[in-house]
């Protein structure tokens, strides 16, 4: 939440924009930094199945796909957070915007299941991340899910780029 909001608040945002790096370098740099922290934290949880492995025999494949799902979902959430942070200089507002966005994307799955197997229902279900994440957790790697997470991530970073760039001409 502080990635861009704090820069604006501390008036260091102008320094960033006038520094000899491009906007997408700034965005990617900030995003990768939070992603690495997240992956580091997620990586620590591998200890749990590793310890369990000593006492029991189980299939590791669904666990790896589950971790892949967690990593992709986390990356998507972080990109939404980066975008929300770029919108405002108040990190509380940024937090509300990102939580609200993610909550709506989660709840929209319910609307999709209400509409059933119609075109609108399928589109709405596809937009929600839960369906894609569920499949990965259950041990299914589907290229459409990977494309979904990749698209969401790229879209959010692109929107962030547009928002950051807009400060130059607003």
């Amino acid at each position, binding site marked *: 939440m502080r990635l861009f909001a704090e820069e604006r608040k501390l008036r260091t945002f102008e320094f960033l924009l006038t520094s000899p790096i491009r906007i997408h370098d700034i965005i990617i740099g900030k995003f990768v930094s939070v992603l690495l922290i997240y992956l580091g934290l997620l990586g620590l949880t591998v200890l749990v199945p590793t310890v369990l492995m000593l006492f029991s025999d189980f299939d590791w494949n*669904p666990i*790896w796909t589950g971790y892949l799902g967690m990593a992709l979902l986390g990356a998507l959430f972080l990109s939404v957070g980066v975008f929300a942070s770029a919108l405002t200089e108040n990190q509380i507002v940024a937090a509300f915007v990102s939580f609200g966005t993610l909550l709506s994307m989660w709840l929209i799955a319910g609307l999709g299941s209400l509409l059933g197997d119609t075109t609108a229902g399928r589109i709405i279900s596809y937009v929600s991340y839960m369906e894609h994440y569920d499949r990965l957790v*259950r041990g299914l790697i589907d290229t459409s899910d990977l494309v979904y997470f990749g698209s969401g991530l790229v879209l959010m970073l*692109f929107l962030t780029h*547009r928002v950051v760039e807009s400060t130059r*001409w607003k």
Partner: protein
Amino acid sequence: MNLKSIPLGLIGVVLAIGGMIAYSLRPDWLWAVTIAEGAALICLVLFFVFHFETVKAFSGRRSTKMGLNSFLMILLFLGILLIVNFLASRHSVRWDLSENQNFTLAPQTYRVLRTLPRDIKITVFTRESDPGYQAFKERLESYRQASTKLSVEFIDPEKQPKMAQNYGIFRTDTAIFESDGQTIRVTSPSEIELTGALIRISKDSKKRIVFVEGHSELNIEDKGTQRPFYRQRSPDSTRVRRRHHLAPQGVSRADQYVGVGASRCTPFRYERRARPYSGVHRERWTPLGVGRSRYPDRFGYIARSLGSWSGPRRTGGPARSVGPRRPHRIVGQNVY
């Protein structure tokens, strides 16, 4: 009232978006969509007419040009992502790493799904807490991925009891397969059951029941009590006819020998209790091997109706013991 003071632009945009949403949700409400879109167009035209100078000044600003440019770039980018996602969902590749290969179907199932002749609707009555929910969901999703002719809908019978009542659902974890007026219900999410139901419901031909007539057998067009049970106009006989999708046909003795209904005959006999049981006739189709030796090649199997269609008789007794006229002899052709 000054027309310039009305936020025509905002009203126009709201109406336009509302019309599009209404069309996507209810395409049959075309009149409402037309009215909304027409009103939106009028509002927007009026807005441009009344605020022409404002619009002109606004469009000349640098921020407007850059903003519009940015907006178009976002739209373009969204369009590209939509196309990529559409293609990815249509031509996805899957790696099933689940422990029990839950998402992988048998080659035979894929063959059945590829050759489905028409659309099939599957309605699953289940709740998320039910044991079969996940299995139904995973398996039917794989089925739907493999065929565009399947549509699957999950219904919670507690939330939509009316729907469950219409389908006669008395237990959850029940899937109803519907196609071309036929209905099959499946209560197990196993692949064997689901694929079997698909095979049965996608058959184009009806079950045929062929009655031997002439040579003192009853005619299927006989009136009154002499009519076969399934041709009587009682609620019971109608129910049986519908349930078994029967297409009755008479066949003369001579035709037997040239092999009418010879292909894919399955033996059965029709049993009916002499006395109505609780006011409802109990009928049963059971496989029968008798008569097989008499017409083995032409018909595959011949089934006889055991006992007459009316009057006192003993179930299982020979046909000739009933009276002067023989009862119908049945050559059954079963579809599956």
